[in-house]
């Protein structure tokens, strides 16, 4: 009885906390709307019309979970007569499996999750870290801090944040990437020379690099461990058999590959430093680009270090953590400005404060008060991304007709979304909404093993004799990774048929998602590397591929089954329109009735309306 009472009390407390939060969020949303209204008044423009339930449903499914609603989901929302149905849908979607699937694509693009053969960089653990963070709604500042300060073994389950450093182990490039990713600033030019446009000098760059100096990726065991444990057998195998030697080397790397070093607080200028204000190899003490300097516990002075030889950078003093503290602090104006800029851009389609990777400290965009308000909201929400998205989705601003930006369009003042193309993954996942009534069915809800994390776990119990035996008795160089991947797959259990997976379920071992690549999916060589442009191979696929065939003529396909039971042409058209465009046919479209079903489906799938957000 007490337990039941306790449970009820807990539920009541969390319900009231949730209620309080949702009241607060509503207040935030109203503030955004108020600012938009003020701006519109100023330029004498009318507010945009709101969108009906059909348009809202399509929009929020796409923006919250990255796919269009199935026809059943749409019908169910339209039929819902209960109050606050839009707010309830927002809540439902943000707490559904689709959320982690959709936003994984976003973060994986930003963090460039990719297999890089040279450094044995298998991205599975990195990808799982993102998914776990999303599933648990980890606050964004915590995510960023973990990525910047990650250390230790690459393939240890749960330690996937190390993938960020491993992805770009050249320290100066990595620094430039981190600054672009989390602060929205482009400082990469300053790595080699004083920045041509901005204020950053090469010296500034090196001082910033000093926080994390000596941090490095090492894929092989440390020299001590190597000498004590592996060296003898490695030499034997090298002279015996190439395949066995490779398997020995690669399998040991899975166990030992790690990020080492927590930063010494000192960097040295490069050998070719060309300016008058410093000498080649001169020691630079850690300093931030702007704002308050975080605490750094130096054990040496600059003068003492300058007196030592060039390869000395001082002892490690955990300076990298200070860098992470500075970068992710609520007091760092660029940190919050960058994330609100990105989130607004994702949801509204337009930049808020400036280009995603090239902001400036001064620039607050076309509506500075709005930018400032959003920064305040993000801080008030303690960087809870779901809560922030909820605020945006619940605003009247979001729930208004999308503006087509053109020379003759009304002036755009960030008063709502703009017309833009869906991402490659959203297009592909939307095809899934047509093929099956449960498109999110196979989205994982817990950690998935891959060949490397699974082998890492096994290897904890493996001594050198086991590694030797593994190399000699194994299936050889080409097959050992495959074998470990198969073992991991078995461990994961049933994951469903691939043709019913969402794009985020494809891991490195599943190969490139060909259709998503055609649609412009990022190959993750660059931050924000996706493109939404048309090209001939993409259009040829859409026109002449088997898309509508897959969706309509496969007897098991969801839409096929829906249409099969219906004979009235008007009703059929309604089903096709609702399923693909998430709306009812207009009066003016009724003449299209007379066309064959598969022709209508083909045309809708190829239409701009399907590919774009309105």
């Amino acid at each position, binding site marked *: 009885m007490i337990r039941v009472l306790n449970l009820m009390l807990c539920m009541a407390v969390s319900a009231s906390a949730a209620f309080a939060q949702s009241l607060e969020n509503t207040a935030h949303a109203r503030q955004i709307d108020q600012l938009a209204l003020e701006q519109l008044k100023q330029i004498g423009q009318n507010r945009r019309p709101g969108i009906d339930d059909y348009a809202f449903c399509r929009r929020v499914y796409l923006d919250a979970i990255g796919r269009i609603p199935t026809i059943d989901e749409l019908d169910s929302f339209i039929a819902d007569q209960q109050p606050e149905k839009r707010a309830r849908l927002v809540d439902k979607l943000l707490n559904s499996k689709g959320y982690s699937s959709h936003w994984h694509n976003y973060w994986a693009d930003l963090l460039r999750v990719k297999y890089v053969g040279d450094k044995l960089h298998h991205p599975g653990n990195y990808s799982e870290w993102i998914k776990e963070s999303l599933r648990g709604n980890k606050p964004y500042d915590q995510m960023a801090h973990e990525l910047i300060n990650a250390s230790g073994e690459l393939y240890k389950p749960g330690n996937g944040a190390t993938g960020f450093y491993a992805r770009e182990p050249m320290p100066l490039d990595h620094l430039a990437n981190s600054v672009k990713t989390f602060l929205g600033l482009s400082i990469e030019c300053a790595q080699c020379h004083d920045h041509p446009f901005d204020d950053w000098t090469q010296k500034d760059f090196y001082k910033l690099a000093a926080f994390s100096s000596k941090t490095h990726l090492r894929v092989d065991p440390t020299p001590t461990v190597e000498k004590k444990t592996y060296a003898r057998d490695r030499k034997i195998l090298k002279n015996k058999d190439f395949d066995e030697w490779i398997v020995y080397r690669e399998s040991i790397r899975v166990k030992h590959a790690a990020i080492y070093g927590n930063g010494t607080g000192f960097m040295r200028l490069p050998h070719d430093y060309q300016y008058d204000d410093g000498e080649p190899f001169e020691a630079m003490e850690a300093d931030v680009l702007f704002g308050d300097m975080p605490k750094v516990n130096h054990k040496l002075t600059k003068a003492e270090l300058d007196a030592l030889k060039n390869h000395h950078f001082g002892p490690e003093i955990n300076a990298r953590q200070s860098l992470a503290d500075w970068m992710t602090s609520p007091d760092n104006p660029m940190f919050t400005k960058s994330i609100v800029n990105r989130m607004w851009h994702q949801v509204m389609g337009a930049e808020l404060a400036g280009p995603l990777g090239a902001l400036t400290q001064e620039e607050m965009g076309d509506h500075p008060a709005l930018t400032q308000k959003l920064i305040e909201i993000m801080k008030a929400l303690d960087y809870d991304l779901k809560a922030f998205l909820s605020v945006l989705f619940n605003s009247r601003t979001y729930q208004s007709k999308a503006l*087509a930006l053109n020379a003759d369009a009304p002036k755009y003042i960030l008063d709502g979304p703009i*017309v833009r193309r869906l991402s490659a993954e959203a297009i592909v996942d939307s095809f899934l909404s047509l093929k099956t009534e449960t498109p999110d069915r196979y989205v994982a809800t817990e950690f998935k093993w891959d060949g490397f994390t699974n082998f890492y776990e096994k290897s904890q119990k493996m001594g050198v004799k086991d590694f030797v035996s593994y190399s000699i008795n194994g299936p050889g160089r080409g097959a050992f990774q495959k074998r470990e991947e198969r073992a991991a797959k078995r461990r994961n259990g049933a994951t469903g048929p691939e043709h019913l997976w969402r794009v985020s379920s494809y891991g490195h071992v599943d190969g490139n998602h060909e259709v998503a690549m055609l649609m412009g999916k990022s190959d993750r060589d660059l931050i924000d*590397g996706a493109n939404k442009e048309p090209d001939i191979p993409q259009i040829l696929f859409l026109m002449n591929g*088997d898309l509508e065939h897959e969706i309509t003529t496969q007897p098991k396909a969801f839409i096929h089954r829906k249409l099969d039971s219906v004979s009235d042409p008007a009703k059929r058209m309604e089903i096709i329109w609702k399923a693909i465009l998430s709306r009812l046919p207009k009066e003016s479209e009724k003449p299209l009735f007379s066309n064959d079903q598969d022709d209508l489906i083909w*045309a809708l799938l190829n239409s701009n309306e399907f590919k*774009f957000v*309105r």
Partner: protein
Amino acid sequence: MTGMSLPFLNAASAAAQAPKARSVINIFLSGGLSQYDSFNMEVDKAVIAKSRIIKSNADGVRVSHYFPTLAQQMDKLLVINSMKSNQGAHPAGIYKMMTSYNPRSSITHPELGAWINKRMTTERDSLPNFVSIGKGSAGTAGFFPGQWAALPVKNTSAGIDFVKRNAAVDEGKFKKRLGILDSLNGDFDQDYGTKDTRAYVDTYKGSLKFMNSKDIDAFDLEKENEHIVSLYDRQEFSRSCMLAGRLVERGVRFVKVELGGWDYHDDLYGRLPSNASKLDKGLSSLLTHLSQKGLLDSTLVVVSTEFGRKPGVNPNKGRDHHPDGFTCLMAGAGVKAGQIYGSTTKDGQSAADNVLDVTDFNATIAWSLGIDPAYEEMSASGRPFKLANKGEAREALFA
């Protein structure tokens, strides 16, 4: 011989030398071709290991016995033995060879083919000017708009993916579909038309034009003349070379053909011969094909690889990577055919005379087409990049 039209040149660009070539065929051997088992026999016997030296039909040019057919075509080829790269691993090595830049995560550079495509494409062209044949990654446009990336042809029998109407759809039905699509898009354009929606409408038009272009049959090897077909064997690489020849005949400026698998760290002499035979036969056939069609004078054929292999054979009977002194070939377009350019030291350890950096190699290819290698473009963030980085054209490669 077809008349040569000058490529479209920006008035501001300098080095407007009359071009040597109209088109380039780049046979890319990914994995690292072993130069001491192919075309660089000018080293100590021990370096050549199990290869045997045979004479060719060009005085002073000797090749490995793994290339007997090419030995009879060396009068058309220029052997460059002094290639040098600063990259010794495959991804970075290939990137450097393709783009002339070291890979950096702040930007993706366009491949040489994309530069040439962008620089030379005119309104009149009915085929894209950058085509990539083979299973490797097609040529990236880097920071250029996607339209300059290579058109991929994964294999010669399939041709271009989806270029024909779906089998289930006849012409009438297809027309009907396009009609419905037009109507839907027209309607959507009223309220929601933007530059991007219009770009889609334009690209659909362009794709239809491409489908119906009479030049599409350029990709159909079934249409090639019997006497040309008889020059080639049935290997996929040979057929890819034939397709490349067909495409340059139709005016395509840059065709890349990839033949991979050269990365023999072990059992080199067990595994090299079959791959060598593919190159041996395919390249020979291509040179004859181009000759017979009168295209050799206007086509620069380039055989390249990302780096070479070591002078010493390792304990696993293979050779490891070696970027300091490796070999590439050129033919056609007035190169100094039947000769050797540059050398390595006799012990095969490094490039010696007339060292040619990868960036210079690429600069020379561009220069041969009449493009100034110092031609510059800006990335989206306003950073300037040159077509061949700091490379300079090596005019000495041409007669």
